[in-house]
């Protein structure tokens, strides 16, 4: 693992040039501010490689694991799709999963309406302390329960407390292929590293090792699926490249990786709408700045820690990728096509798993427990000197992006003015 070359975000903020943003945007010429190209990412997919039918066994989801625990007759009786509701009830009862709605209204499942401490107000996101207090008041096991479903529900399940349910990791197998999309992040060729599709060795993508054996992961790794699906369209990632003197070859460009506050929509042909304007999320911690270079139309950024929002259906997750590198190609049609490589922090991936919820994982045939145990096992980046444990796992995400315009919010504009002084 290599940490060299990482820029602290605060230090990079000092390097920010007055690019894009509200100041110039009001009078930008057709095509936008000169020397600046911005893009909106219409999907960010954990990617790996291989054909699951030939080089890796598949891991079972929670329902399949639970079914395997049942006597043959019961298993047969609950296996049909029509029995899914009964199967869920049995499994939830067996493991003692809980789901507690924070406000009136049910999701149609087994949610119960919460008893709330007096200091908790409806429609306000409770603090972690309040979550614990609510959970205790409503009979959750001690110190158990997490917010999920867009902060509307407190749940206790294999996704919130995976180590409480080790049985649900039964049958799990890691991805066993040798080939994977990705990047050599640490500059070394280790025994557990993959080989890239182009033959490059030392590919670091242990997250794919952990999740690549799930059918859902494999489907989302399919380029045809990635072409059609838009992910996190409600809070899309934005990539802004500025200071471009030559779009084919430039030794130094500034790159901002940002989160949009406006949704990405489709155009009349069903593709992501290009050249739309996106106001930034006001959270300044979501402004990630680094430098990069362009060689023969391919952008490569210097490593930087990146925080961005992944907001898709019930998932509302701030994801952190440390030592992140973007390698992407400017396409003739104006789009940007490439990958984001780096070490996804375990904390942010845990958070994503919690947001996925037991229901979500069950519906896509995954096991939060098995994944959580696997990423803890395969983590390979940013060792915590205090505990000696890795805090992040190497990962690779593919993305496609179409041209867009970045509109800095007042927070970013003020930050930019401050950094310019």
């Amino acid at each position: 693992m290599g940490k060299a070359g990482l820029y602290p975000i605060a230090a990079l903020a000092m390097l920010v040039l007055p690019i894009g943003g509200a100041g110039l945007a009001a009078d930008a010429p057709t095509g936008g501010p000169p020397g600046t190209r911005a893009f909106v990412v219409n999907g960010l997919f954990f990617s790996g490689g291989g054909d699951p039918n030939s080089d890796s066994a598949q891991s079972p989801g929670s329902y399949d694991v639970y079914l395997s625990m049942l006597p043959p007759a019961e298993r047969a009786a609950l296996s049909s799709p029509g029995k899914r509701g009964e199967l869920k009830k049995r499994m939830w009862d067996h493991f003692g999963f809980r789901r507690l709605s924070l406000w009136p209204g049910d999701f149609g499942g087994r949610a119960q309406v919460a008893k709330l401490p007096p200091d908790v107000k409806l429609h306000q996101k409770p603090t972690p302390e309040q979550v614990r207090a609510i959970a205790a008041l409503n009979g959750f096991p001690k110190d158990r329960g997490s917010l999920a479903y867009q902060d509307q529900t407190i749940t206790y399940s294999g996704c919130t407390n995976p180590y409480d349910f080790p049985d649900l990791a039964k049958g799990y197998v890691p991805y066993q292929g040798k080939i994977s999309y990705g990047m050599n992040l640490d500059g070394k060729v280790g025994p557990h590293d993959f080989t890239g599709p182009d033959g490059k060795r030392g590919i670091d993508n242990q997250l794919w090792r952990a999740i690549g054996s799930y059918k859902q992961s494999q489907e989302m790794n399919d380029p045809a699926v990635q072409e059609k699906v838009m992910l996190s369209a409600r809070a899309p990632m934005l990539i802004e490249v500025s200071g471009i003197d030559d779009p084919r070859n430039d030794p130094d460009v500034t790159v901002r990786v940002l989160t949009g506050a406006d949704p990405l929509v489709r155009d009349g042909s069903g593709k992501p709408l290009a050249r739309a304007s996106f106001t930034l999320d006001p959270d300044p911690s979501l402004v990630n700045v680094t430098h990069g270079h362009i060689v023969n139309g391919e952008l490569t950024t210097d490593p930087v820690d990146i925080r961005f929002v992944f907001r898709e259906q019930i998932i509302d997750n701030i994801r952190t990728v440390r030592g992140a590198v973007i390698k992407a190609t400017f396409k003739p049609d104006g789009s940007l096509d490439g990958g984001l490589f780096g070490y996804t922090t375990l904390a942010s991936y845990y958070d994503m798993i919690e947001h996925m919820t037991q229901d979500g994982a069950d519906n896509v045939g995954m096991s939060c427990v098995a994944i959580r145990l696997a990423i803890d096992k395969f983590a390979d980046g940013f060792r915590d000197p205090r505990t000696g444990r890795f805090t992040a796992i190497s990962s690779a995400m593919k993305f496609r992006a179409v041209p867009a315009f970045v509109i800095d919010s007042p927070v970013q504009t003020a930050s930019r003015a401050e950094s310019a002084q």
Partner: protein
Amino acid sequence: MKLRMSRMALAAAAGAAGLSILLSSALPGKPNAVIPQSSVRRLTEAQYRNVIADVFGSGVEVVGRFEPDLRVDGLTAVGSSAVSITPGGLEQYDAIARHIVAQLFAPENRAKVVGCAPGATDPDGARCAADVVTRIGLRLFRRPLALGEVRAGVAQTLNSAGKLGNFDGGLAATLVGMLTSPNFLFRIDTPARSGPAGTIDGYSKATRLSFLLWNTSPDDTLLAAAASGALDKPEGLRAQVDRMIASPRFADGARAFFDDFLQLSDIDHLSKDALIYPAFSTSVAAAAREQTLRTITDLLIDHKGDYRDLFTTRRFAMTRALGPIYDIPVAKPGWSIYEFPAGDPRAGILAQASLLALHAHPGRTSPTLRGKAIRETLLCQKIPSPPANVNFAVVQDVNNPTLKTTRQRLEAHLDDEECASCHKATDGIGLGLEQFDGAGQFRRTEHDMPIDVTGKFDKAPFDGVANLGQLFHDSPKVSACLVSTVWRYGNGRNIQAEDQPVIDDLNRGFAANGYRFMDLVRTIALDPGFYALPRARPAGAITTASATISKRSAS
């Protein structure tokens, strides 16, 4: 609420008003169509909606399909003098009126509209009905109701109320009748009883003035001025004109004019091939129409600017929906003014998406359509329609491997001398706009070939839309076209030979006042000729028009 209304009553009312209903007497596309000077003009859909909002409140919905407005020589304002109401159209007006009236009697509106609540057999019902009929009649008919009209309204209300056992039901039927009355649906001039011969009375003046300046019926102040005779005196008229032009509502009137002048309502029916122009949508089309109107009012009303600057301005009203079309960042989510820098390809309304997209095919540009529209609209010229047997194969073959640009394909098409004569008039201007595709998006190449946007306008060379816009800015034909169009809009008819001295005066004044649109409109509004009764015309002129209609109908 069950509403009843006698269609016979409406027909009788139409007859009583002496309406001369001309069925489709307009001649769209025919040069200098002769529209008989008329004292009767049908409200356009926009005017109807404005009046309802003014009289009953903007919360009252107007739902239904209107008789289509007819565009004659580019203006629905001219067409409004030449249309009547078909039986089917009357049914629509009736349905719309019923829906409106039903809302008026909703609990939240009733007290405001009616203001009294007698029972079905209450002797005070007559007084209540008279009050409502008088008060609302004044606003709807744009004049006080005659005593006989009020009595008839009261009688109808009480009669219906008695049969329905419900005063409100009776009053509603009367209101529906008023909303479907020719006195409401048509602006009918009334000769003045005193004063110079050949002029219209104060209320008719107020109506002409209000629809010219605000595109709606007179407000209480203007009606009061009509009642007091103030509009018959120059200083009284001037006071009202100045008041109305100073009002924010004048921008509504200006929008109505330019919407008609530029034929922007056609955008409502515009569609593009989503695979070729995926960024274009119905919401983009609506925003493009709004953009042009806001750009115009920003320059001409808010900044009291020079009309000619519309062809060179770099200040475009902008909203985020249009950002992808213009390929620019739009910082504010609502409407704001976006100023393109000098040297940018976007300059003037000729470079706005509304006109560019409106005058193009669903999947490709058309220099011919663009050139024709600009010549007819902005230069007031007439371009003949193409013959029926034209072979467009070369022009339409956008994937021709050797004729890669539209200019090349058009030039090949012009090998046909018969086509060339007309295309010479249109294509030069249209080819100057070829750097904007059929959705109004900027492009430098077509099939990897650089797009040539050079040409000549009135023998002056140009290179691109900014140059062309400057030539339009400097062309007397452009400003003269606006003058004549505003006059035609206000008068609801085309210019005849005897009107030419007035037009000449207006042109001189327009130039002398710095080409200020507001001054031009003010001058027309203060012109005594604007309030003249239609002059007696030789019978032959009208006969000629009718004969042409009959001939066309028969063919």
